[in-house]
């Protein structure tokens, strides 16, 4: 058996759905010639219909856990020029007073222009740790403010640099889905960051879509969607922006 087993070795993966599955019956098996299964914690191989009881302690004991989106540092494993985002939400139904308790989702692409998402095939599995990079959720404080620690987004063909924002009221009802644009001009942050090969940005600005040509931002001539950016490549940048919603 020992020798033949090695010729027999085949690797395979077992996939299992989460529904509890009860072993229907334990059967008397012909185990002669096999190497047995280790620890003898009472392998009750009876011949009737019975159910193998778990020998382990009960558990896990689940505890209520917020969505993994709820976090202020949304970087996970993504690298790039540091960016702090300070977004203030104001209420157009209340004379543009700040809106406390609003839920704010943000998401943006990494320095190479990729979003976290499932791959092309619906059958793809993912590792359960850290697959939601550059996505986060915060609730506005008494000043209507949420802050996120992230990296300066890169860009991809057809779009100007942008950050997606979805604002909900405290009950989870959508108030506004919008995007934040980045300022342009000589030596603006987007130009400097995308030239920063030391920080892993490789695209420069060749082929870049500017705000005026961008499908989303081109109609925003008043600059309502335009953020204020301060800082430097070496020290990192701070993005400040106000979004007015019908709260």
């Amino acid at each position, binding site marked *: 058996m*020992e020798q033949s*087993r090695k010729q*027999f*070795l*085949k*690797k*395979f*993966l*077992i*996939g*299992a*759905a*989460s*529904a*509890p*599955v009860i*072993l*229907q019956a*334990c059967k008397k*098996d012909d185990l002669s010639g*096999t*190497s047995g*299964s280790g*620890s003898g*914690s*009472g*392998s009750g*191989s009876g011949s009737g219909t019975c159910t*193998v009881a*778990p*020998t*382990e302690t009960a558990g*896990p*004991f*689940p*505890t*209520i*856990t917020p*969505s*993994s*989106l709820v976090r202020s540092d949304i970087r996970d494993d993504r690298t790039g020029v540091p960016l702090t985002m300070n977004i203030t939400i104001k209420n157009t139904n209340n004379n543009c007073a700040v809106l406390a308790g609003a*839920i704010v989702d943000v998401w943006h692409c990494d320095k190479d222009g990729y979003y976290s*998402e*499932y791959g092309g095939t*619906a*059958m*793809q*599995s*993912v*590792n*359960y*740790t850290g*697959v*939601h990079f550059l*996505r986060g959720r915060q609730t506005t404080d008494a000043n209507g403010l949420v802050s996120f620690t992230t990296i300066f987004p890169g860009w991809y063909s057809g779009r100007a640099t942008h950050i997606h924002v*979805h604002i*909900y009221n405290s009950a*989870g009802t*959508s108030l506004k*889905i919008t995007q934040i644009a980045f300022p342009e001009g000589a030596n603006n942050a987007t130009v400097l960051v995308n030239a920063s090969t030391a920080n892993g940005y490789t695209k420069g600005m060749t082929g870049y879509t500017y705000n005026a040509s961008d499908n989303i931002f081109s109609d925003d001539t008043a600059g309502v969607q335009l953020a204020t950016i301060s800082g430097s490549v070496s020290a990192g940048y701070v993005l400040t922006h106000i979004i007015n919603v019908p709260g």
Partner: protein
Amino acid sequence: MIDAASPGAWEKLVFDSSYNEFKMQAQLYNQGNRQKSFAEMLLNNPQAEKLHFLVSTSVTGYIQQLNGKIPGVLDNLGRHFLQFSQYRFEIINSDINNKAAHQVAINFFSEPMCWHDSINDFLLVSDVAATVTEESILTNLVQLQPFLSVSSIKEN
């Protein structure tokens, strides 16, 4: 598969959390809540396919609480023995107005295993990573059962 009738505490938390997240994220693809069911949303906007991924964010915390052990599959001694790091979360059905219609599935993918032999409807398997000595190797016997499948295979 997890739905309103799932009995376990873990399943109930996954059910509640994923339904709340579905109702929030669905508004991305269903502004004004014109469509009610997930199927209608998919039909109307193929982008709604992304909801599988977006809603999965609500259950990653619960998946981490499993400590890498696949629930529901016991070996013939009644032990959880399958380790996982890969999973796939899917929305089977849902409806923003009817929580009872919400159904999700989580598939867990075990680490690679060696298959040594089949004994009736039991598989004799061992961890690929387990140290192979000349004398012996630790194995598990697991019964073929509903919702247990082999997802990929490689000959050595």
